[in-house]
């Protein structure tokens, strides 16, 4: 019963998304810190690949549960992302498709800042949605709106 409380609906997906955005944030902050370091190559993971893994896990859950949206999801590991019980471990790859500057660094400050903004917004949105879910369950348990 208690297990079932926390596997309902979109909670597993949102938890995984928030774990991913937290880990990716560290990568992006490191890239920004090294924007002037000669010879440094910025690293990143592709969020679209993460979304694809999550979508596959969700489809699998929908099939096995027959349309009732409950149960944990089991995302499959890729070479960039390893899913453990309570977090996602990222193995970033170098982004090699930017202009190479004269100091051997191929960062693109604008796209890194954009990635940072998107990541932060996705993280905050995920947290808000989790909070909303928890509030709803709290209301039902308390029997008070």
């Amino acid at each position, binding site marked *: 019963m208690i297990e079932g409380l926390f596997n309902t609906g979109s909670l597993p997906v949102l938890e995984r998304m928030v774990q991913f955005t937290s880990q990716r944030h560290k990568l992006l902050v490191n890239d920004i*810190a090294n924007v002037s370091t*000669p010879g440094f190559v910025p690293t990143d993971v592709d969020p679209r690949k993460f979304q694809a893994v999550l979508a596959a896990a969700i489809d699998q859950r929908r099939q096995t549960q027959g349309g009732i949206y409950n149960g944990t999801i089991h995302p499959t590991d890729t070479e960039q992302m390893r899913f453990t019980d309570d977090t996602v471990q990222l193995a970033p790859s170098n982004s090699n498709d930017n202009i190479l500057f004269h100091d051997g660094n191929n960062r693109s400050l604008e796209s890194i*800042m954009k990635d940072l903004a998107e990541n932060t917004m996705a993280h905050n949105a995920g947290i808000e949605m989790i909070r909303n879910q928890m509030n709803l369950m709290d209301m039902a348990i308390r029997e008070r709106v």
Partner: protein
Amino acid sequence: MFGSLDISTSALVAQRTRLNVIASNLANQHTVFDAEGNYSPYRRKFAVFAAGDPANGNDAGVHVRDIMEDDAPFRKIQVGVGNPLADKDGFMEVPNIDPMTEMVNALEATRAYEANITAAEATKSMMNSALRLLA
């Protein structure tokens, strides 16, 4: 919880050090005597960055590995043979510092500093929103 702002802070420190070095270059553009009073023109300095943050034992972040002196040759200006500092042809060596280059470097250091401030704000906003989960 305490390590998340270290990376951005290391970058802020490194960029500020770089800005200090640039300011020192600009201040000493015409310095030809060193601290003891010997004739020794000021050599342009520059900061060398490297990834990693040994002060905090972090693999991520950036630090100033070294402040090296530029060994480009000095500029020679003509002062006339009568000047006590001139060599036999009437030329004197002065520091080889170009204010335009230094200003451009200063702008870039400022830009990187601002980018890292934004990254630190993003970290703080994410932690705040996670705290609001419980509120």
